[in-house]
């Protein structure tokens, strides 16, 4: 949109570096960009936005982030819904604000995915597939995990 975009970058939280590696290696996520898009969608669905300061690696250029279809739509929609009473959040000059919102939801989403990995005793690859399946089957949102489910991943002995 404007020349200023060239300098806009998206950071990924250092805290979830291990999870991101796992998602890349075992869950077929081609790039970090895909992980951020996915986890931000999850984070927004879970209403979990977590600010962070420590970033890992080089930040991703916004143009790179928004390569996939509907990815910029996702970023915009999240921002528009979060700053509900201010349509001008969509203004080009407020891109950094939108990205900050996006980053924090991505961070929250990663946190949620990590929790699910821990709770379900499943690899991230399976958790991710299940989350998508759940998003399709019902209105979505995390169901509370039952005791049975908690135990099903445990092997005795």
């Amino acid at each position: 949109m404007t020349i200023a975009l060239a300098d806009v970058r998206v950071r990924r939280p250092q805290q979830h570096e291990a999870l991101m590696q796992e998602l890349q290696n075992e869950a077929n996520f081609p790039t970090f960009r895909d992980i951020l898009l996915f986890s931000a969608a999850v984070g927004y669905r879970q209403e979990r936005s977590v600010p962070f300061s420590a970033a890992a690696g080089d930040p991703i250029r916004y143009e790179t982030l928004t390569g996939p279809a509907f990815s910029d739509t996702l970023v915009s929609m999240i921002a528009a819904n979060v700053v509900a009473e201010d349509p001008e959040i969509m203004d080009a000059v407020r891109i950094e604000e939108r990205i900050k919102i996006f980053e924090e939801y991505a961070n929250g989403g990663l946190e949620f995915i990590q929790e699910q990995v821990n709770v379900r005793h499943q690899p991230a690859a399976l958790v991710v597939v299940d989350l998508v399946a759940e998003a399709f089957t019902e209105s979505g949102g995390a169901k509370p995990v039952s005791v049975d489910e908690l135990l099903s991943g445990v092997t005795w002995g």
Partner: protein
Amino acid sequence: MRLQSITLTNFRQFADVQTFDLTSDSVRPVSLLFGANGAGKTTFLNAFTWALYGTMSDDVEQQDRMITDSIWRALPIGDSAEVAVEVRFDHEGRDYRVLRSAALRKESDQQGVFSPKVQLWTTKPDGSSETVGAPQETIHSILPRGVSRSFFFNGERIENLVKKGAYAEVQKDIKVLLDLEQVERAIAHLPKVDRKLTADLKKHGGDKASGIQEAIDVLDERETAAQEELKVLESDLATLTEERDSVTDLLRQHAESAPIQAERDAVGNELEEARSARDAAIAERALLVATRGFQAFTDTLSESTAAMAQSLYQKGALPAPLKREFVDQLLDDGSCICGTPLTEHSVPWEHVKDWRQRAGLQAVETAWQQLSGQIAPLSAARDELCDSLAALMKRIGAERDRVTRLEERKSELDGKLRDSRMEDVQALETNRMELDGRIGVKQQRIGAVKAELQTIAKEVDQKTKERSRAVVTDELATKARSRSDLVQSVKRALEDILAIREEDIRRRLDAELKAVFKSITHQNHVPTLSAGFELTLYKDVNGVQLPVPKSTGENQILSLSFVAAVSKLAREIRKERRAEGDSVEDAGTYPIVMDAAFGSLDQDYQEAVSRALAKMAPQLVVLVSKSQGLGKVVTELMPYVSHLGVIETHTTAPGSVSDDIELEGMSYPYIRAAESDHSELKVIK
């Protein structure tokens, strides 16, 4: 050879001195001994071979513990204990007593190394007794070690007699037993005699005759060498053939399992394919989730965004009624559209500036338009993602089912194949071809050597003729020449005799074997002793003779028949061989001592075997357990039994271990609790 008695002294289970009488006559040739498992039946059998040859069969464990354990344990360190076996027997009119014994000084609970010594005494017909100088030699001449295997045997291992690979030994044994070896030895010795004679001829026979004789000597040497080579070649050939047979056997087994193997391979391939299809589907789903998965979570987000845009439109905020850029332009220009000058901080200026905040930005409007424009396509994309994922899930499920099904099938086939030996067919085939090649080479060489031998024989003939024509002046040389000629003739005659005898004996043994076997088995199988003294079993299927794969039981019957036939023929031949005078009464008579001879035979076979044995063997010692011997065996054998005994087991095992055996209506102790583990020979009659 007829056994009279055996005396065991501290011999393994048999503590102290124990004797069992074995004298029998032609009416009642059988001695029957019962013993529980572990009582010492095999030990008893081995006592005979130990006394005679100092050896025990390989199936006797802990061969270094010869002295009864309890005796050895009770022995003070430094003292000595004796182990001995004495066998009394008569052979061709003489009584013999062989004693093998050893004394061992105790140094620890382990028994040390023995060096048993053997002594042999003979009683002449006139009653005088004398020590035999070369005891082991004499025993070997009475019953050669090789032959003894046919007469002292463990029924559980008797089928080894007819196993492939045993033929060479069997053949040798038979030759010894049936007096063929003596002829062979004579033939081997004659050339030496000849050489001595011809040495004179060479020395005194003049140039011509000496030259001829030297040529003959060379030919003789070549002949000997060729014969040696032939022997080696033939044994090599036998080994190779045996090896090839076993490879062929493996291949045949493989051929049987080949269809299963083929199916398993096919299932294995399909399984591989199914697994990779399943994995591919899973990977595809993962990629779809990874790259487009976020769309799944956008449903409510899209709805609320759409609603937001909608309300902005409704509020009139979108599209913006007034563009901020327009207001800014007015403020910059300092003039309103109505012409009013817009001086900074003037009322109109403030008025217009106030509008500036209310006016929408073109960029924001565009952004919102773009955003709401994306919502419908996103929703469509989301639906499409849902469909794709559902399809992938279905595919994964189907492939998973297929994998499970194939895995089950494969493990079932694996189970079927587990028992058959799965050598690499390719390697086996190569191996067989190579063996075939090597057999071919050996056979060629054998042919060549045989041809050479014929040529040599012809040349020797030729030279011998020349030799007789050559002028010999010296009288000594003439004599030597005629003697040598005679030796040659004798040798040729003996060779002919050997060939004829061999064939004759083979035919008789074959006939005898057929008769015995037929009397035992109910199967329509015919055993054959081939020209190479090889035992085979055929069945006649509508005039075609087919080889029968021998079962364990059948092998036992075949071996027993063979032993019985050899035993019978040995007697006949020894009786015939006397050119002058009557043969000794027991010529060719050998006892048969057998342990567990009825081990793996059915009741009806046990009956037939017992009947056949009682009639055929001149003397029979049978060792059986209650389970093997009571019933048919006892019923059949009892009329022929002269000595009946029990090897009573004495055991320290706790609890009520006592057991009795009932024979001819009476009960006798079979197993008894005792202070020490040992066995006692108890005579019943």
